[in-house]
């Protein structure tokens, strides 16, 4: 028991260290760029170390204290460190450290390096807060804080109009989701009397939980915003304006996955109707984003849409819900959705961070060229980046025995078992995934250089390559649940595993899917400066582009035409209020204004106010007199 107490003591450190680093940088080190970077990286290393140590001791605990009491409504802050949190914390720690180290090289000459590293530390603090939160309300607090760190980092190069617009868009779109999230939390509190995860689960065990479709759906709004699900996905592709390591950490591996993590946390509140909505939202996002990815020319945008699509997979997996399995003759209902979603979240964090950092390495090597049609031939120029990126691609398209293969199969199997329509869509999405990923890979690395920039591409230093190697290793082995000590069993035991004929079906399907998608891409795309699909099938290409643009158009229309005009109209009315009513309507008052102005002019200002006081007294006297009767 004593050791447990010791470990609770560690928790404030893991949470406060990045905050202290961020505060130090913001207050004292804004111009000491290198010191700031070192402090931030040290904080990240400490987090990684503590997260691993904490996870592998196998100790789990929780506890909290009251922060705000409002009559019968109490908000508390606390820590719930179970297997789920331990797993997520390790992901954040490991990927976070890789990204911090990578940033050292990637932003070595940035003019605002201190601000950047301060932002990263701030992000680590907020993200760890989400992971450790023991209640939805505390999660919301840190949810807002990650939103702010994300704003700060997307807009890092705020001199670029597009970057600062993207930052604003990301923040406000997330706020739209948070609007529902907050109302969901309040509703949940009033319905169940608590928002603590453990207490909610206890109520669920006693069948005392108030079930309603609205509560989980409102809470899901938060995930729709943060995990960029349809229809709030618009901010994520734009967020690629941020520095590439940020995209890897925040917009691929951790923050955007927080929505999925949150859903797993509130699993107990789910009802079938809500799960259905969640499942279809995820499925539609998966296919929509995959279709969009096919036409992208920007290396980061392809990865961004791919992230959207994979997040759709996770959300869909969660929505597919529980699975009845036969264990030793007894039927057990397992929260397979949680297992599959978290498993994919884990492997995705590794291989997507790997590919984003790989793209960062490419962009760095090509002197900030991001158009894949202007690359080519990088395999020879940047062999290490090529090798690791290839592993990442192989992992995401589901190459057997790499990380993505296992987690994707788990999701496909769950879909196969629970909902065949979703299964069909997800399988088609998988075809697209291997299609656009192989397209990206071929255009970037194979063939001959197609521009000056890629001609002179070069591999970066150790800080750029070491994280790639580490993440590549994890992308290979991350799918073998056996490699994890038993400490994450609370999550990994939930992963659905196909047996018998289902196993064959799933294995065959994913193999065929991968071969079809990548084969098509390999044959279709030639190393050229124009898009082969555009030339061979302009109609299809145009349709896909239109599909991608449709959401942005709707939002732009709403912002520019509806909201702006409505606000302008109100402003116009307000001007009438301000000037019109008084000046035109109440001529007498205008006279008074004029009088005041004149009084001021002759220096006898007091007279006017005395008149008013006199009037007030008169009124008072009148009132007393009148009312005395």
């Amino acid at each position, binding site marked *: 028991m004593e050791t447990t107490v010791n470990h609770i003591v560690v928790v404030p450190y893991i949470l406060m260290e990045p905050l202290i680093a961020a505060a130090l940088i913001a207050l004292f080190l*804004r111009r000491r760029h290198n010191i700031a970077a070192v402090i931030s990286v040290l904080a990240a290393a400490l987090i990684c170390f503590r997260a691993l140590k904490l996870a592998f001791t196998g100790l789990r605990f929780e506890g909290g204290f009251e*922060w*705000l*009491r*409002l*009559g019968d*409504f109490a908000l508390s802050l606390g820590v719930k460190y179970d297997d789920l949190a331990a797993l997520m914390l390790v992901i954040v720690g490991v990927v976070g450290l890789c990204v911090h180290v990578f940033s050292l090289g990637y932003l070595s000459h940035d003019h605002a390096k201190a601000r950047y590293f301060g932002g990263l530390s701030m992000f680590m603090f907020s993200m760890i807060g989400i992971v450790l939160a023991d209640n939805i309300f505390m999660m919301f*607090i*840190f949810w*807002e*804080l990650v939103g*702010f760190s994300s*704003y700060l980092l997307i*807009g890092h190069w*705020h*001199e*670029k*109009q597009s970057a*600062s617009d993207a930052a*604003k868009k990301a*923040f*406000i779109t997330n*706020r*739209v989701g948070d*609007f529902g999230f*907050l*109302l969901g939390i*309040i*509703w949940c*509190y*009033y319905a169940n009397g608590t928002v603590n995860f453990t207490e909610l689960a206890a109520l669920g065990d006693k069948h005392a939980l108030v079930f309603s479709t609205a509560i989980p759906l409102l809470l899901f709004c938060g995930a729709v915003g943060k995990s960029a699900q349809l229809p709030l996905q618009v901010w994520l592709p734009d967020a690629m304006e941020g520095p590439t390591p940020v995209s890897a950490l925040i917009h691929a591996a951790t923050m955007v996955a927080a929505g999925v993590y949150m859903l797993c946390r509130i699993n107990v509140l789910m009802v079938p109707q809500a799960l259905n909505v969640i499942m279809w939202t995820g499925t539609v996002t998966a296919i929509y984003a995959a279709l969009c990815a096919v036409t992208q020319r920007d290396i980061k945008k392809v990865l961004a849409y791919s992230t959207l699509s994979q997040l759709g997979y996770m959300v869909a997996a969660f929505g597919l819900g529980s699975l009845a399995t036969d264990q030793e003759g007894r039927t057990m209902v397992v929260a397979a959705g949680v297992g599959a979603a978290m498993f994919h979240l884990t492997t995705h964090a590794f291989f997507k961070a790997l590919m984003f950092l790989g793209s960062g390495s490419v962009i760095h090597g090509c002197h900030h060229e991001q158009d894949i049609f202007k690359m080519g031939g990088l395999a020879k120029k940047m062999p290490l980046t090529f090798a690791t990126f290839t592993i990442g691609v192989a992992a995401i398209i589901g190459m057997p025995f790499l990380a993505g293969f296992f987690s994707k199969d788990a999701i496909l199997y769950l879909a196969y078992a629970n909902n065949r329509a979703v299964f069909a869509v997800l399988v088609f999405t998988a075809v697209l995934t291997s299609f656009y990923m192989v397209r990206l890979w071929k255009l970037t690395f194979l063939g001959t250089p197609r521009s000056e920039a890629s001609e002179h591409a070069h591999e970066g230093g150790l800080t750029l390559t070491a994280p790639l190697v580490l993440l590549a290793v994890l992308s290979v082995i991350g799918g073998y649940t056996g490699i994890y000590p038993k400490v994450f069993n609370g999550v990994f035991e939930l992963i659905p595993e196909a047996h018998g004929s289902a196993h064959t079906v799933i294995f065959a399907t994913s193999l065929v899917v991968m071969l079809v998608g990548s084969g098509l891409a390999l044959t279709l795309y030639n190393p050229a400066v124009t898009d082969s699909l555009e030339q061979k099938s302009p109609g299809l290409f145009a349709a896909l582009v239109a599909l991608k643009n449709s959401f942005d158009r709707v939002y732009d229309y709403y912002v520019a035409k509806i*909201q*702006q005009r*409505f*606000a*302008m109209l*109100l*402003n116009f009315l*307000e001007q009438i*209020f*301000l000037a019109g009513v*008084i000046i035109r309507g109440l001529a007498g*008052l205008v006279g*008074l*204004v004029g009088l*005041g*102005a004149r009084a*001021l002019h002759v220096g006898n*200002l007091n007279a006017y*106010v005395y008149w*008013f*006081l006199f*009037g*007030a007294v008169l*009124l*008072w006297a009148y*009132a*007393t007199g009148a*009312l*005395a009767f």
Partner: protein
Amino acid sequence: MNALPCTIYISFLGALLALGAGMRSAATARVVALLTALTSCTVTFYAASQFVPGPGLQTLIDKPWIPQMGIHYHLAADGISLTLIVLTGLAAVSGILFSWNIEERAGEFFALYLALIGGVYGVFLSADAFTLFVFYEIAIVPKYFLIANWGSTKREYGAMKLVLYSFAGSALVLAGLLWAYAAGGAHSFGLGELAQAAAHFSRHEQLGMFALVFLGFAVLAGLFPFHTWAPTGHVAAPTAASMLLAGVVMKLGAYGCLRVAMATFPVGLAFWSPLIAWLAIIGIVYAGLVALVQQDFKFVIGYSSVSHMGFVLLGLAAANATAVSGAVLQMFSHGVIAGLLFAVVGRMVYERTHTRQLADLRTMPLHRLMPFAAMTFVLAGLASMGMPGFSGFPAELTILIGAWKTSPKWALFAAVGVLIAAAFTLRVMQVSFFGTTEGTKPGSIPAHHLDHPMAPITWAERAGALLLIAAMVYVGLKPDILLNWITPALQSPLFQTALKGGAS
């Protein structure tokens, strides 16, 4: 605790001293003013440290004033007034620090300023409706002079409009109070006595009295559609006066609504609260949208004030302990945040760039020219958007939670306001401080911005900003420091009756 009334006398005395000191030099006047404000601020902090929270007002002084009419000079305090007095102390000190550059007739300026502060302390401490009203009027008059003499943009108009609205409001209050006084048998203006008498009033009387008094006070709190004095007044006012207007004077109105109208006429409250809540919600959303398209930096902040005060009024209208404590917390929080925002806009930015047009500010890389101002504004902006870690978050959250209890629909629509707040705050933050330099040719930036580096931020500005930031963060992290004062105060029989809709 018992020293609290001194804050009033110190302020008035300081006003006289500052006036005298102004004859000698502006520097003496401002030192006198700062010392005065610091002294009364210290008194409030000392009183706060001694304060034992409890239900009901703790009488500080109670002397017959006009015995024939039953008027007492009765000062008292509870957790709610203490919260606002501490706010006044903070706002007064920081306002003087941000007026450090006043050279023109500094003596008069600080005298009026301190007189206004004295009046405000008086209102928050009054336990007699008549005393309260007198202090309320005292607070209005200096506002006019401050704006008309030291203001900017259309100052006479702004000042006059503000005073007209204020007096119209106080006329309504006075009418309502006199009605209640007469109907209660003309014995006393004491708030407790009035409430006792009001229990025997007919329903119609209560409805009418509540409407008069509440509306009268709510005008000053910026209730839609009677808010239009606020943006013009704020914009016209000199920095310190805008800080006080938004920071403290609008709270006078909200405080009056709570202390006088709601506590005295619970039946009226129960009847009118849905209407007030909807007007408050309209105000939140409407002012937010209008702020979104303003071209003048200060107008954005002016409208954001109206929007945030809408939350206060919503909390009051929701009339349950949670919502009302949230409303009081929001009064404090907004007082600090709005003060800071106005300080950045009016003092730090305007007096160096001489423009408040967003289109002009956009062309200046202000975050590089004045990083301290940019940082301060970002912090205040975050607080204003309701970011956790700052006082705005617990305040607005508490109001939403409380409003949900009364009507989930109110919480739903008011939460839209939080969304809009993010939109207009981010817009103005980005345009004014992180304006694009991309695409602007070097020649298009007015030459004087490049030739003369802007005057550095003075120590006074830094001190004032740090004071307010500290308050904003401290309350944001530990809101219970204030809630522990506010919540017990709402347990008093008067408030309990009001919060139960008059069914005692």
